[in-house]
């Protein structure tokens, strides 16, 4: 005897509607592959490439609380804006973010990163200078590598001083694809 999809969905919706979740998440398809998207009551808190769901939910539970449940509805606004972005109908995300999981320095760098405009690139060193830690280009690289909300926080727009793409936690092909989508790829010396 198994739980019917309708009964299952009804519970998930009720749980989200009752405000009982620390984190709601869902999977959503995109041109850069399957994404796991997670939100708290404060905002978007995670986007993961190639998600291993069990591992992702455990990370989320550690960071935000154990009441982590898959539920479609809380994710809908994010899904909609991502679709628009990938359809080139959106150049800026309008979503509240929850960066509680990040350390203070990371948060500061990620907030700077959020202001790098669509279709443009910056460098690790420039972000370090903006964060008033000019020596910290490498640390900025680490922050980019651990960016909890890629795409929306555009770490794909951060490249090396010589214009090379350098690296991307989601894989260089994805970085290239996102920059091409934004028409930024010509600005780099590939």
């Amino acid at each position, binding site marked *: *005897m198994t739980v019917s999809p309708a*009964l299952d969905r009804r519970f998930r919706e*009720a749980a989200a509607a009752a405000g009982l*979740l620390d984190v709601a998440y869902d999977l959503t398809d995109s041109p850069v592959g399957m994404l796991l998207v997670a939100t708290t009551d404060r905002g978007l808190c995670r986007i993961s490439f190639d998600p291993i769901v069990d591992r992702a939910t455990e990370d989320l*539970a550690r960071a935000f609380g*154990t009441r982590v449940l898959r539920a479609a509805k809380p994710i809908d606004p994010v899904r909609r804006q991502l679709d628009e972005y990938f359809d080139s109908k959106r150049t800026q995300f309008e979503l509240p973010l929850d960066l509680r999981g990040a350390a203070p320095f990371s948060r500061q760098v990620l907030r700077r990163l959020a202001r790098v405009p669509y279709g443009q690139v910056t460098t690790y060193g420039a972000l370090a200078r903006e964060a008033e830690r000019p020596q910290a280009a490498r640390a900025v690289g680490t922050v980019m590598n651990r960016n909890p909300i890629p795409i929306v926080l555009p770490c794909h727009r951060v490249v090396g001083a010589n214009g090379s793409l350098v690296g991307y936690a989601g894989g260089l092909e994805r970085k290239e694809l996102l920059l091409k989508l934004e028409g930024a790829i010509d600005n780099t010396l590939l």
Partner: protein
Amino acid sequence: MALMRMPPPFETFYEENRDAVLRELRRLLGAQAAEDAYQETFLRALRAYGKLRHSDNLRAWVLTIARRVAVDQLRRRETSPPVAEPAVDKRPAYAELGELATELPRKERAAVVLRYGYDLSYATIGAALGSSEEAARQAASSGVRRLRRRMQ
């Protein structure tokens, strides 16, 4: 330090226990009512889950919640007698028995209905009523005696 281990993400807990919870609720309430109780059970579990600081016996924990929800629902059925009766022959045995037993004290009535209407074991009834197997047996038998006396 197994005792101090945090419970798994609710999603994992839910996936591992939902079928067992539904099975138990159907046994106690029938297929229809089990669906409402299912939702209520997991909402109650979710409410308490954030404060759990262990991951021991989560199956037993959630089944206890399910039984409490089932008992609450049976009590609600008792306190709101049906106004318009459906055709008698379509009603399940527990409904008829429940009506017959309306005048019994609450605990006796629950025991009689769960035992003879749902065919549950005294151990399960005891767990559902928050008492022992022996107490459930006594409540059911004194309920039956009372019913007999009344029908004479």
